[in-house]
């Protein structure tokens, strides 16, 4: 694909307003909460309301993206929703999103799943359709209400949130210079059909899984484009916790200042398919025109999608049209573990 042909025309985020502190979860399981929070680099995580799920989060994020893009929803001819917590196993999330936006009926829709990176795969699909002039605008959304088994290590970070991106040729707030993916069959994390909670291979999720693919994706993209670390103002890596992206930055010799602005995981936990896309949204919320961003998602199983972006002069004005990530981070209401369990339907019979 020719570099810089398409880009992000609009983007939007959404994070539910409830939070639970890591210490509150640790207390229930008799663990040292402050040690766990420090180790993960995460203080608290977002919790969806009783009537929120991946579809409602996707719709809210998508509506914000539409406001930023300032386009008519009928001009969006492709909608992809990436998640590992689609409310239905059969019946698409994307068609409900399309209906709620008013983008129906002239639109292609599909749900995607690749653990935490299906939303970025959807962006690549939109790029192809836009670049080949099959469609004017395409939207990809990464959203999740992440599942973590009670008592499991994942429970400390599995959160809820999402971000939507509208891809097109004109009116871009950021141009996409190129994309590169890095994929192998690596069984680090999975959920079988019908299983309520995912399983993971504990320490195996680090070196051969996350680090190999995220570094492989980021380095591969820079090699492809002939860029180096110094060419970028910001880096965003998938954030299962704050520790993993920080370690990635160290091994690629990236100054942590270029990473820390996008580390939303500290405040909201790991929103899985929303994770790297919310990190990117946070950067777009604060970046100046002409700044370069490298974002790399990660999905267990395992793969990464890396993108190189340059912000445009349109960004500062257009982003004012919708709430930003910090607005959502700031509005919060703490819940106890008991209420959290109710919210996540963990009590039998709900």
């Amino acid at each position, binding site marked *: 694909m020719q570099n810089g042909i398409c880009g992000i025309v609009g983007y939007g985020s959404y994070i539910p307003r409830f939070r639970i502190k890591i210490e509150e979860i640790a207390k229930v399981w008799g663990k040292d909460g402050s040690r766990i929070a420090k180790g993960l680099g995460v203080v608290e995580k977002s919790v969806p309301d*009783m*009537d929120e*799920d991946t579809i409602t989060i996707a719709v*809210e994020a998508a509506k914000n993206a539409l406001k930023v893009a300032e386009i008519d929803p009928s001009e969006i001819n492709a909608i992809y929703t990436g998640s590992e917590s689609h409310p239905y196993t059969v019946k698409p999330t994307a068609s409900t999103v399309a209906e709620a936006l008013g983008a129906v009926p002239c639109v292609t829709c599909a749900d995607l799943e690749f653990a935490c990176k299906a939303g970025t795969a959807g962006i690549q699909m939109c790029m192809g359709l836009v670049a080949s002039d099959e469609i004017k605008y395409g939207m990809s959304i990464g959203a999740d209400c992440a599942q973590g088994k009670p008592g499991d290590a994942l429970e400390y970070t599995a959160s809820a949130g999402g971000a939507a991106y509208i891809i097109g040729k004109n009116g871009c707030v950021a141009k996409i210079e190129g994309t590169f993916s890095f994929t192998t069959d690596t069984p680090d994390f999975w959920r079988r059909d019908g299983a309520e909670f995912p399983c993971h291979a504990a320490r195996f999720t680090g070196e051969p899984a996350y680090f190999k693919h995220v570094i492989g994706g980021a380095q591969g993209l820079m090699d492809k484009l002939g860029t180096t670390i110094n060419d970028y103002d910001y880096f965003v890596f998938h954030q299962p916790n704050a520790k993993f992206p920080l370690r990635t930055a160290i091994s690629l010799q990236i100054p942590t200042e270029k990473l820390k602005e996008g580390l939303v995981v500290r405040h909201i936990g790991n929103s899985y398919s929303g994770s790297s896309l919310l990190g990117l949204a946070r950067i777009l919320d604060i970046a100046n025109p002409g700044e370069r961003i490298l974002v790399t998602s990660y999905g267990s199983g395992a793969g990464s999608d890396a993108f190189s972006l340059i912000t445009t002069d349109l960004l500062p004005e257009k982003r004012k049209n919708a709430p930003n990530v910090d607005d959502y981070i700031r*509005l919060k209401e703490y819940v106890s573990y008991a209420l959290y369990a109710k919210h996540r339907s963990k009590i039998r019979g709900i």
Partner: protein
Amino acid sequence: MAHLESVPMFWRRMKSLYSLIGVECLNCGKKYFPPRLICPECGGKEMKDYRFKGTGKVVSYSIIDVPPKGLKYQTPYGLAIVELDEGVRVTGQLVGCNLGEIKAGMRVETTFRKIIAVNKNGVIQYGYKFRPEGYPRINNGEKK
């Protein structure tokens, strides 16, 4: 609340529920939600779809402790009569704030939420609810 379990009924009301789409009388201009086939005001039979902006103010509200079937786990919740800026009154659940923050006259906007899922295997019905206008910029960052 037997109608809540009907999939065709939900599907027919979908545009109203998802996007607050009502009708506007082509003869006298009066707007209706939910949609009507004939204008009670002038008897006009030509109605066109009208998408309400979704903003308005709470006229009155109550806190629901004993809900209809399927909403048990959402209690207690706020249910409000909202006067939309177009002058039409609709009923809807209030979310996105604490019950103590709800008051008559407060400005609200629509949000997209799950309305009801009758059982684990049934269709999930989505639709509009109301939340404070300007969400999530509603506390000026002063709270907590």
